[in-house]
């Protein structure tokens, strides 16, 4: 066991922190209010290599480990989760999926521009009637010999508009149920793809979320990832890693709110002293600190397992469920410590609280994580 970060990990953490404070903080409130996608910010983040930070350098990735990814995700999420979610979807879902299960041709063609950050990706799994229950896919990918014909609707798609490369999960053999599902790499500009309106969300408002409709979209056969029918295990494996990203995001939301609350409690005076000196607040902050530390350890443990090529599905579910629920608690307390100031936008904590809520819902709700965790108990 070793709890010491390497020099490189610390440098990445600092780089992410500097980026968040210099490039994201100054207009995060405005972007949230206007629901404005941070295109320029993402471009800069991509130039620094954060979107494909774990990908093998031979495909233009950053070659960093998952621990570094957790640290970077936490720092970015402290300031702006709408940016962090782009980073998570690219790294954990789209890029990891193609790098791990794609063939060499697919890697050369699709992975390279994604890993280098020239293009961004989206992962299309959720449907109007299949959210956390990923087995009941209604979107179909009909086998037409040399191509698939894609039809159906996907919901709540992060990066739907800004991505160039989609990974779409769709049913090819309905009779085979989840064993008939395929994962296809789809060019977003293919004819027959239309987007629903930008979702007017409670939080992470500047992330670009839409529904996506497919109407007779032709996808070449060579864009299928893995063997015929590999789509479901592909999606499940990919989401295992995705959970580390979202867990780290929730962690960052919590620690960002905590840092602000701590600072505020040492500056704000009430009854003749800084409010930190009122024990009720000191204990609140102490509880928040313990929860954050727990959450961080869960994230790092899951990341460590992944880096050691050990099974991490349960660990990542634990991290995701705990951090998401914890972020909700911590941000709520952070708002409370700020009093009235916490309820107005300028102090950031109300936004962090709104962002925390989403981490309990997307990429597998907290309830679904509990299903994953409880099932693992029986093994």
């Amino acid at each position, binding site marked *: 066991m070793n709890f010491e970060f390497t020099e490189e990990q610390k440098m990445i953490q600092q780089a992410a922190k500097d980026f968040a404070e210099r490039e994201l903080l*100054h207009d995060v409130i405005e972007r949230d209010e206007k629901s404005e996608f941070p295109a320029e910010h993402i471009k800069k983040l991509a130039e620094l290599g954060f979107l494909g930070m774990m990908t093998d350098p031979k495909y233009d990735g950053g070659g960093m480990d998952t621990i570094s990814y957790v640290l970077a995700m936490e720092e970015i999420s402290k300031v702006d989760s709408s940016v962090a979610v782009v980073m998570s979807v690219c790294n954990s879902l789209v890029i990891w999926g193609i790098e791990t299960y794609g063939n060499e041709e697919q890697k050369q063609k699709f992975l390279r521009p994604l890993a280098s950050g020239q293009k961004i990706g989206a992962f299309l799994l959720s449907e109007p009637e299949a959210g956390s229950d990923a087995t009941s896919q209604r979107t179909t990918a009909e086998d037409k010999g040399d191509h698939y014909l894609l039809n159906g609707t996907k919901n709540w798609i992060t990066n739907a508009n800004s991505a160039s490369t989609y990974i779409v999960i769709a049913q090819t053999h309905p009779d085979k149920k989840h064993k008939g599902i395929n994962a296809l790499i789809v060019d977003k500009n293919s004819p027959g793809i239309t987007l629903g309106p930008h979702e007017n969300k409670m939080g992470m408002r500047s992330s670009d979320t839409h529904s996506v409709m497919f109407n007779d979209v032709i996808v070449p056969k060579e864009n299928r990832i893995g063997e015929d029918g590999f789509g479901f295990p592909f999606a499940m494996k990919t989401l295992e890693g995705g959970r580390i990203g979202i867990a780290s995001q929730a962690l960052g939301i919590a620690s960002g709110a905590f840092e602000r609350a701590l600072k*505020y409690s040492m*500056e*704000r*005076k009430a009854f003749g002293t800084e409010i930190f000196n009122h024990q009720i607040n000191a204990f609140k902050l102490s509880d928040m600190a313990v929860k954050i530390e727990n959450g961080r350890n869960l994230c790092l443990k899951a990341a460590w397992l992944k880096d050691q090529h050990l099974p991490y599905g349960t660990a990542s579910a634990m991290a995701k469920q705990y951090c998401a629920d914890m972020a909700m608690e911590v941000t709520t307390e952070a708002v409370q410590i700020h009093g009235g100031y916490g309820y107005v936008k300028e102090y950031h904590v109300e936004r962090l609280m709104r962002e925390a809520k989403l981490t309990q819902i997307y990429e597998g709700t907290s309830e679904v994580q509990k299903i994953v965790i409880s099932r693992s108990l029986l093994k």
Partner: protein
Amino acid sequence: MSVLVYTENWDGKFKKLSFELVSYANEIAKKLNTSVVVVSIGNVGEEELKKLSNYGASKILNANNEKLNGLNNQAYTSVLAEAVAKENATVIVFAHNNSGKAIAPRLSVRLKAGLATGVMTLPSSTEPFTITKKIYTSKALANLVIKTPVKIVTLLQNAFGLVEGPASGTIEQFNPELKDSDFKTKVVDVNKVTGKILLSDAEIVVSGGRGMKSGENWGPIEELAVLLGAGTACSRPVSDEGWRPHEEHTGQTGKIIAPNLYFAFGISGAIQHLGGISGAKCIVAVNKDPDAPIFEAADYGIVGDLQKVLPDLISAVKELKAN
């Protein structure tokens, strides 16, 4: 023995800073039972030079040579080294400004004389020569001992003030030897802003931060500055955003100033900013955030809206000036 002072001139004129340096040197000279010799480089009239005697200059070495127009680090160092030898100086005083910072370190090496930069007080003892300076950009103080027989100090502006102490002020033409090898740099163009009060000279500084919201809102700050005969400054985010030129950036990595009065409008007071203004005698902060750290550093504070407070302040100052 003597205490030597280098006084810069600005188009043939001295500034308050020049007289402050002489006043300071004079106090050190008293401690050492010796007298003050001033070196002036460049074209300065006799009447102007004579003014230095009011603050304790016994002798003024006037090095007026066309070759010395424009600061040249190596050549100026040679001039001062020759003056030190000639006058047997044991303490040499510079201003802690760009020219002091350019020459003093070179002279330190040339004379093997220990250097204390940015000092703010007289030496607490002359044997050993112990002096206080700010470190960590004013977050702490250090006592520094200079161990060498000859000592060099650079004095922070406004740290000492003016002390009159008339002395003979004999002006002596000084023709130091100038070597061609000292002239490896050349000033080819000078571009000066005129008609504006320089931040480094200003007794009053009016400064704005991110709370001003936009560079277009600087009108009232400039108006107040004109009313008070003040310089204008800003915090780092403001210059980074390009709302104001970077020459106005006051703080740890920008200008360090020590005016009598500093107005901070919409400046939260990050520790880096406070480092640049902690020498100010009086700080007034206006900020809508009652918990902004600037109020910890301020002498007077108003928690309120800049849009309202600034115009009110301008009219109140106008009223005062009218009476």
